[in-house]
């Protein structure tokens, strides 16, 4: 007699065989084959043994979760606050350095303008005065 493949029997125990025809074939075979019937029974026994597997339940699990959640949300909030204040500080530093640069540039431009104007004025007046002296001296020499 041909026996049922054990993998098929395992699927049968779990109700995973869809084809009615296959199911019927297995059922009929189990009625007449002691070898397969034993294998089937051992699988059923294993299932009932595993049903006993459990992890002790924790009554305060939700309370612990709430505590963890609150801590998490608080740390998220403080992280957000930190990033926000860090961002604000960065913006302020940027604005400060920008206005400082702007101020310094403006000042250096006006100083340059002023310096150049003064230099031109001075050299112009010097030139003029020298010219005048030289003119005067030339006149004197001429005499």
């Amino acid at each position: 007699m041909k026996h049922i493949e054990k993998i098929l029997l395992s699927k049968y125990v779990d109700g995973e065989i869809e084809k009615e025809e296959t199911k019927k074939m297995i059922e009929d075979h189990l009625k007449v084959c002691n070898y397969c019937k034993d294998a089937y029974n051992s699988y059923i026994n294993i299932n009932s043994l595993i049903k006993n597997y459990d992890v002790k339940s924790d009554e305060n699990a939700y309370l612990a979760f709430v505590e963890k959640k609150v801590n998490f949300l608080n740390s998220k909030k403080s992280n957000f606050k930190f990033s926000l204040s860090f961002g604000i500080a960065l913006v302020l530093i940027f604005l400060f350095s920008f206005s400082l640069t702007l101020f310094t540039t403006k000042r250096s431009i006006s100083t340059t303008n002023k310096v150049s104007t003064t230099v031109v004025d001075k050299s112009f007046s010097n030139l003029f005065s020298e010219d005048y002296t030289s003119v005067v001296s030339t006149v004197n020499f001429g005499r």
Partner: protein
Amino acid sequence: MEKNNLNDEILIENFLKGDEYSFRMLFERYYDNVNRIVYSYTKNYDDAKDVTQEIFLKVYESLKSFKKKSKFSTWLYRVSVNMSISFLRKKSKEKNLFSLEEVGDLEEKFEEDKPSYDRNLAEKILFELPEKQRLAFILSQKEGKRYKEIAEILNVSEKAVEALVYRARENIKILLEKNKSM
């Protein structure tokens, strides 16, 4: 209608609308199941408790991104499996970082993690199975999941789940025999 009777999808919708109590319902509905799955990885009750809490915190945070392509429980179990695996990886890395002076502490830790003799037979036998076989079997027999869902949770094919459950059964049979003869 009592909130306890509401299905997962309705509870999720209510939670996303701001009803915190709906999340509590989901938590209480699935805490033990998730804890069992995590425990089957960590084999340590305190670690399992911590990881389970982390999982629910993650779910609380990312429920908005749950796309409802699969059942909530399938999604939750998948998150649980992934987080348990990353916990174990992190733990083994930490263990590798222990210096020689700390070997004594490490040995004590291993002692703590060893299953004690009075642990029930089911747990003792399950813990001797290879990881995937153990999980496929627990999901199928304890959590009542279909092979298709288990395949989704473990990210393997349905055929692979068939084989995993079958091999788990055969291995359990051998382990039970060994246990009888001891």
